[in-house]
């Protein structure tokens, strides 16, 4: 009951966030006209919005795709974080710990420094490839480490991920050093932004998102079993290594899709799953979908602030997620601990 309530509440928050976001922005569109224009999009409803062609373009080509992209990216980052945390049975893991962010950063930097001439789509593609490569190298390093070593595989994989992440970050700095003129461009990308999000970007990553989210969701029950221990999981007929490999691959794909649109946005993958667990308990069957809904709502709200607080200028979204997310997170930790004890 509480779980259903939590999911429902998260869905309501997401819808409310999206609606609020649709009505505010630097362009100062008339709210009545916006409402009419949105209602006009509902099938069989015919309303003339009174928006000028430019205002109509602002709403439907700039503001709405940005909201949808924000929801998608936020949902992917949060479910990825939750998935990794399940795989590693460690609440502090997310894409950042496994070489995915560092790999994406290296890919994007290489694209900006060396491949700028190949067109504007190069950076997201390079970030996507880099993110997958980062996790791939980390996984490979982890496997090599755990077959030769004596420690348990999960911890080794995590340590390998951190080492690979540091290595890739150093490589990224080295590449950046070759062309200091693009420092600002690279820096902006590393901070993350949903500026320039378009329907085309959303449709480009939608297939990868759908596949990866489906795979992660289907493994929710296995992640619950893994949480009691590998021995128990084996006794129940589950092969932990296979589950881990599958979920890691799906999470890598989901994170790479998100990163391709937004650049690096920290914090969402750690705090949202935490809040989800605090609210609805540890079962991944709830934590995964709740994280996805919560992450989507959280990032839509954060991006709304990013593009309105200093309008017509913008704040980097990573700044907003951390500035609001960190205190909110501490507040949630405090509040729930008091209830639990």
């Amino acid at each position, binding site marked *: 009951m509480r779980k259903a309530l939590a999911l429902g509440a998260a869905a309501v928050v997401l819808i409310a966030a999206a609606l609020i976001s649709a009505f505010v*922005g*630097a362009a100062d569109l008339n709210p009545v006209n916006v409402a009419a224009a949105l209602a006009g999009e509902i099938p069989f409803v015919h309303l003339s919005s009174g928006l000028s062609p430019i205002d109509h*373009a602002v709403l439907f080509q700039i503001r709405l795709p940005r909201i949808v992209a924000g929801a998608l990216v936020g949902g992917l980052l949060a479910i990825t974080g939750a998935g990794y945390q399940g795989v590693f049975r460690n609440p502090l893991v997310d894409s950042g710990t496994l070489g995915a962010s560092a790999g994406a950063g290296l890919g994007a930097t290489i694209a900006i420094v060396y491949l*700028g001439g190949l067109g504007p789509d190069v950076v997201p593609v390079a970030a996507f490839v880099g993110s997958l490569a980062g996790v791939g190298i980390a996984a490979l390093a982890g496997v090599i480490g755990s077959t030769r070593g004596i420690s348990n595989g999960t911890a080794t994989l995590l340590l390998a991920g951190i080492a690979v992440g540091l290595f890739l970050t150093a490589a990224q700095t080295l590449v950046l050093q070759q062309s200091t*003129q693009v420092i600002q*461009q690279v820096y902006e990308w590393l901070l993350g932004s949903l*500026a320039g999000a378009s329907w085309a970007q959303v449709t480009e990553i939608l297939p990868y998102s759908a596949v990866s989210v489906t795979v992660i969701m289907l493994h929710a029950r296995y992640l619950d079993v893994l949480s009691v221990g590998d021995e128990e999981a084996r006794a129940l007929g589950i092969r932990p290594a296979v589950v881990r490999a599958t979920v890691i691959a799906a999470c890598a794909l989901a994170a790479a899709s998100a990163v391709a649109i937004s650049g690096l946005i920290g914090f969402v993958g750690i705090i949202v799953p935490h809040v989800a667990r605090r609210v609805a308990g540890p079962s991944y069957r709830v934590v995964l979908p709740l994280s996805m809904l919560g992450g989507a709502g959280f990032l839509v709200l954060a991006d709304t602030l990013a*593009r309105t607080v200093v*309008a017509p*200028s913008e704040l980097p979204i990573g700044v907003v997620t951390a500035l609001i997310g960190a205190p909110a997170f501490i507040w949630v930790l405090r509040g729930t601990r008091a209830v639990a004890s």
Partner: protein
Amino acid sequence: MNPLKHSAPVAVLAVSIALAALTALTACGSSAGSSASPASSARSSVVVSASASTRAPSPGAFPITVKTTTGLVTISAAPKRIVSLSPTATEDLYADGAGPQVVAVDETSDYPPGVPKTTLNGTSPNIEAIAGYDPSLVIAAEDTGGLVAGLKKLGVPVLIEPAAATLAAAYAEIEQIGQATGHAAQADTVITGMEAQIAADLKKAGTTHSDLSYFWEVSASPYYSATSQTIFGEIAGMFGLKNIADKVATAASGGYPELTEEYIVASKPQIIFLTDNDPGDGGQTPAIVAARPGWAGLPAVKNHEIIALNDDVAARWGPRLPQLVAAIAAAVESASAASAAS
């Protein structure tokens, strides 16, 4: 066998090797320092023999003391070996006629063609590498990485000529570089010529276009612009153009604020200037701008007033500034005609 007995001589050996190496290094260092003077005197004779050329610096003006952002800099004699770490300073030097004195320029300096390009870097300068060119004057855009202090120890004067924020500042830098290199007269000629070209463009295109608004695109995704507080804004303002970025002219953004996309579109600029169209610098062509979702209805897109400026001319505020002004003037003329027609 006692390992301690064994290790003592090894340690002594190691220490003596290290000491010997240090001594050798010190000797190298001092010999490099002393050999510098014969080398430079040899080179000075080369310059003296070329003094018949009209480009020879006028020796009478030295020693000269000029005032820069990092304090007073005294140059004792006409500099014979100049190192430029700034592409703008390089263009200034050659325009002023100091080209023959330039021995090395940084990796981003590429104009005029044939400059002695090296791997020197102006944003993270390597003092030793610069000193390797035995410079008698170094010009850079910023004092970073201990550049001024480091070269001061070697007795090399450094002129810091930062990115100009106004046309007047750009002229002043051309003039100062002229004075510091012994070409003050030619610098004045360069500046007079620039002023005349700019005045002609202003006269031709007109200075009362307050009905035209423009968006100056420094970079896309995210969109960075330039306000009227920048040299770009100053030039566009001379034609009377209205800058859509001026609403965010906060001190913190230094004249280059980030704009949210929907604000740019809702502002309906009549002209869009691109300084991010070089392949290595964003690659935003007019076609790409026109195809951005939601931009199709903008007056600038409809009237084809998306102007791809030469990124280098737009980012170096030196002797080629009149080219930038001319490009803006041409855009103003055609946008004015388009808005009159519609």
